């Protein structure tokens, strides 16, 4: 049995790793990740960077403004008052020009930008607030800055993170990993499904089940799908790391980039990484086993969508619930849904990534989901055994149920 499973596994792995859908999916993923990590920098470069500015105004005023602006913006030049045109911005490779004038009521700021939407008014106002206060109160900018720079310290209470910045970073990485989890589970389950459907519709299924136990056949396929998904994940993480490495840091950011391998292991503990792989495997095995069993009931590949479409709904729902759980990991609804089979792998992982989940909850979730996986495998094995030999009219739900009960 194990020998058969390994034979099916290796054949399936080699067949699918060379298949067009897998390669295309892999490449699209890499391109997507590279765009995700590189695009902001590329777009910024094309328009001189959204934080690149020139400051225009009287030298006395700009000399006081520039030190304040430097923490948020890349100041390319300090110019005398003049009309701002496209060539001006191009000449200094700037995304915007801040034109400062002093009035009776303080400061007047006009921003000329390629993309006005990228220039947050609140950010500009916050940056120049000390200058405004200085102008209206008669104090120096540094005095005002010292006055307004009163200490604010966020103290974590039963939190996993030492600071708000770290919490933010982990949430970002967890969000990305949950999205990876979703894509990997759904896409690779679809590939397992296609493989089953191909064998069913090409009528080779009967020859196969005469040679090997259908359970070994199904198991080999699903395991190959799991390993292929892990290969995909490793390549995508490598792409994200390479894509992030060397990309210019966001102005004013302390970290090199948000999603790099170094950051990943700095902020996610080994326990969280292990949890990711365990819950990925459980989730993938649950979803792909159900998908494969249902695919064995179809007679035409055109029917594949109608079978797998409804089955994908819980997975999509799990994605949204898990994203919600990143914000409120200890909410009752998040705790309850982190035990429910199929959706639990997403939600429990989200909770583990951003909070201290009690061990009993993790253990119970694993227990419930492994038990569910066992039941799914038993039922799916029964459906698959019968489904692979079933041709003609598609069976009714009641007939499928009677197969499961038999």
């Amino acid at each position, binding site marked *: 049995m194990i020998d058969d499973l390994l*034979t099916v596994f290796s054949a399936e792995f080699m067949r699918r790793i060379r298949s067009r859908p897998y390669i295309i999916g892999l490449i699209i993923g890499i391109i997507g990740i590279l765009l995700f990590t590189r695009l902001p920098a590329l777009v910024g470069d094309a328009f001189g960077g959204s934080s690149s500015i020139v400051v225009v105004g009287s030298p006395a005023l700009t000399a006081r403004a520039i030190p304040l602006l430097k923490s948020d913006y890349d100041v390319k030049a300090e110019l005398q008052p003049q009309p701002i045109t496209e060539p001006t911005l191009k000449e200094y490779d700037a995304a915007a020009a801040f034109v400062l004038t002093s009035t009776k009521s303080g400061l007047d700021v006009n921003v000329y930008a390629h993309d006005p939407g990228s220039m947050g008014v609140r950010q500009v106002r916050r940056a120049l607030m000390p200058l405004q206060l200085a102008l209206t109160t008669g104090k120096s900018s540094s005095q005002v800055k010292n006055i307004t720079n009163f200490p604010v310290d966020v103290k974590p209470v039963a939190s996993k993170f030492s600071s708000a910045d770290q919490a933010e970073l982990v949430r970002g990485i967890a969000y990305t990993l949950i999205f990876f989890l979703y894509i990997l589970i759904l896409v690779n389950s679809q590939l397992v499904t296609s493989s089953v459907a*191909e064998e069913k519709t090409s009528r*080779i*299924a009967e*020859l*196969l089940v*005469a040679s090997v136990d259908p359970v070994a056949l199904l198991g080999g396929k699903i395991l190959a799908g799991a390993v292929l998904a892990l290969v995909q994940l490793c390549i995508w993480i490598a792409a994200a790391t390479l894509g992030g490495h060397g990309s210019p840091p966001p102005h004013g950011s302390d970290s090199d980039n948000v999603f790099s391998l170094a950051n990943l292991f700095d902020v996610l503990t080994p326990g969280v990484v292990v949890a990711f792989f365990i819950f990925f495997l459980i989730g993938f095995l649950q979803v792909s086993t159900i998908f494969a069993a249902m695919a064995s009931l179809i007679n035409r590949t055109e029917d594949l969508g109608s079978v797998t479409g409804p089955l994908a709904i819980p997975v999509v729902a799990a994605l949204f619930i898990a994203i919600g759980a990143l914000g409120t990991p200890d909410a009752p609804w998040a705790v309850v849904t982190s035990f429910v089979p199929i959706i639990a792998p997403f939600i429990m992982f989200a909770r583990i990534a951003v909070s201290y989940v009690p061990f009993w909850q993790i253990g119970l979730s694993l227990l419930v989901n492994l038990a569910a996986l066992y039941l799914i495998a038993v039922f799916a094995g029964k459906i698959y055994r019968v489904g692979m*030999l079933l041709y003609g009219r598609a069976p009714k739900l009641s007939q499928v149920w009677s197969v499961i009960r038999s």
Partner: protein
Amino acid sequence: MLDVDHIHKEFGTVRAVRDVHFRIDDGATFGLIGPNGAGKTTTMRMILGILTPDGGTIRWNNARVRYDSRKHFGYLPEERGIYGKMKVRDQISYFGKLHGLRDPGLTTRVNRWIERLGLGIYADRPCAELSKGNQQKVQLACAAVHDPQLLVLDEPFSGLDPVNADIMLAILNELKAQGTTLVLSSHQMWQLEELCTSFCIIAGGENRVQGTLDQLRSAFPTRIVRVAPSNEAVSNVLSAVSGAQQAAPMNGCVDYRMPADTDFASLLRSLVAVAPVTRFEAVEPSLHDIYLRAIGEAA
């Protein structure tokens, strides 16, 4: 030895197999015959362990059929399937692996089958690019690459042109000569008659008759007597025999169906006495005749 002992199988309210039983000796070539829906494919699937009988037992070499014994079986199903994108060589090799073969023996066997079936020029091409006949050759290679002790072939000649049917027949004869136990179903009676050493005719999911061709012929109650010339005197003598019935005439001969225990020597003497008999033949029933009678469509 394969022992199929009163098996039955139901699918919901449909009784596909009611009571089928036979025994096949090692190295025998066995024809499982019956009309469409008789239960042949279901019986074959149960022999191979694809389906489990609801009752009765199937034993191979005095042991119940398990997965390890199935490694020594080969199967060519009626509904032929193939991985279209997989190369011919890889496909045969994969099925060899599924039956426990490993290199270096596997490659040798795969090459031997490719050569034996004349598939050399297609060996590294995807199966989908092959003609239907060549695809069926690949399927046969997949079923037999591991030199099975028992090879089950469901309608092996269906869809084959005469040339490929002859190739299939030649290969089955080779396997038979090697001592492979063959179980075949086919509607091509003459091919089965040539190939098989024993038969079982089933209809409605149960046995009708079984045995070697000689046994089946001996049990057949009538013979066709074919006489030439065809004239009134000859017909009068033939019709006078008790239980004789005229059959369709053939090529200037007169055919009469007569009880098998008719004294044919005495009948010939009577015919010679009334006419210049140029032909007298007591025709043995063909497998086709035996089949039709067994399934209840002929006397």
